């Protein structure tokens, strides 16, 4: 298939359709409103549904309902909207419902601003909602990668029966780049007759399925949490994704950076290399699970003296890096989060 020039937000919408996801519920918010605009036109063409909720809270329960009924479903929002959805996402994790949530981040806290940011790292990887749960979080660095991660997100959500988040900064949504929609990433939804409330007639079963996150019996709740924990442990074993850049050099500094910020770092690394300074980079493509072992291995070489966390937030990722490096090397931070994306020149400095 030939390449098309598309805005990240539109490409994300198209990728969902190409993944066989025909259910999209959302509420508009900058900088991701083009997804809704695009799918409002596109979903009816392919026999899908786009329904705008009255709020993000309502949207999260539309998603819950569709997922509980066994449908492929996704939504997109931006930081404050994701906060509103967090209640429904927690319920879905507890009730083991698969869905894809896209957060095209803007600056915060509060209403913050509408420019690119990576300030929802903690929210996405650690504390999205109440209760003991995690999301599998993927962070694209280009429009093409956003498409591929979208197409992988649905089968991953179904494999784990857990929500998956695509965490992009505002630029990933707003930027136009050439994209291809690889046929090889098309998947069919898993058969979920065993648990989904898809209707006794379509399922041809006599037994009722029940989707719930309420476990009043302490032992039952404990068991449910142990089951969830085992899924998160499995994600850590099987789903870590990362990309290494210039790590075959004798780098003195190891950068850890993700999303658009990592591309700025790549340009900075190239320009420093031209000046005879070697810098390596590990780019986490999954933020949970975090590439702990890979970062530790890359930091634990004699020529590496310092690890730098470079992000468009006030150092949220640094804790995961320190945990990975285990005190073997100092970890420093550089970042900005007013909405300007730091330039390669600033990273070099």
């Amino acid at each position, binding site marked *: 298939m030939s*390449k098309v*020039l598309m805005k990240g937000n539109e490409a994300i919408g198209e990728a969902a359709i190409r993944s066989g996801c025909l259910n999209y519920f959302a509420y508009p918010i*900058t*900088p991701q409103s083009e997804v809704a605009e695009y799918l409002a036109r596109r979903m009816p063409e392919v026999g899908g549904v786009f329904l705008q909720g009255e709020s993000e809270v309502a949207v999260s329960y539309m998603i819950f309902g569709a997922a509980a009924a066994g449908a492929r479903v996704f939504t997109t929002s931006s930081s404050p909207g994701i906060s509103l959805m967090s209640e429904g996402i927690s319920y879905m994790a507890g009730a083991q419902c698969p869905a894809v949530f896209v957060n095209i981040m803007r600056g915060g806290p509060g209403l913050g601003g*509408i*420019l690119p940011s990576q300030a929802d790292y903690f929210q996405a990887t650690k504390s999205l909602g109440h209760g003991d749960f995690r999301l599998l979080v993927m962070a694209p660095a280009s429009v093409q990668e956003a498409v591929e991660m979208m197409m992988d997100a649905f089968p991953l959500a179904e494999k784990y029966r857990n929500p998956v988040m695509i965490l992009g900064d*505002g*630029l990933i949504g*707003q*930027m*136009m*780049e*050439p994209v291809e929609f690889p046929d090889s990433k098309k998947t069919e939804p898993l058969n979920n007759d065993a648990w989904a409330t898809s209707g006794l007639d379509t399922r041809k079963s006599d037994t009722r399925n029940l989707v719930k996150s309420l476990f009043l019996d302490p032992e039952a709740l404990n068991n449910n949490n142990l089951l969830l924990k085992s899924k998160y442990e499995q994600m850590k074993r099987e789903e870590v994704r990362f990309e290494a850049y210039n790590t075959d050099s004798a780098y003195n500094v190891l950068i850890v950076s993700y999303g*658009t910020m990592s*591309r*700025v770092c*790549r*340009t*900075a690394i*190239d320009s420093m290399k031209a000046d005879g300074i070697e810098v390596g980079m590990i780019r986490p493509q999954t933020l949970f699970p975090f590439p702990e072992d890979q970062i530790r291995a890359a930091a634990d070489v004699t020529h590496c003296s310092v690890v730098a966390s470079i992000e468009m937030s006030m150092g949220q990722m640094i804790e995961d890096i320190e945990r990975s490096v285990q005190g073997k090397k100092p970890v420093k931070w550089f970042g900005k989060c007013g909405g300007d*994306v730091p*330039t*390669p*020149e600033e990273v070099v400095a």
Partner: protein
Amino acid sequence: MQNEVQFAGFGGQGIMLIGKILAHAAMEEGFEVSWVPSYGPEMRGGTAYCTVVISDQPIGSPVIKNPRHLVAMNRPSLEKFAPAVQKGGIIFINGSLISVNSGRDDVDELVVPVVEMAKELGNVKTANIIALAAFVARSGVVGIEALKGSIKEEFAQKQKLIPMNMQAVDAGIQAAKKD
């Protein structure tokens, strides 16, 4: 080899569109491209700019501090971005709205009165296409055929606008020669 082009003007001048047309033409020629808009609480008449990066390698940072070239469609844009243009680059100036020059002697300055030219063609809305064509003809960042192909594709749903825009391309090419 990497070229970066900053397009800048006010909302309604078709800045985003000509950036997209250039990016699309470059993609068709096999280059890696990225198009990054300024986006904010924008409105018609407000500032509008976008950056197009064209490269034969995968593009690192799509955020550019010092672009190789600038297409300035109004005076505030010229004053804001001209100092950042790389030495040896091209600064295109919309001569209809900008009465000053860039103040740079280390760049190739191309001044074209695109609004008057567009009015002569019969549609003032083609001013942005004239500017783009003049810039492309002078810089050679993409071929003229790729540019025309990209414009035709952009206006595929509005076929009747294509001949006028092709005239605008030709007028832009001529203007780039005369200077």
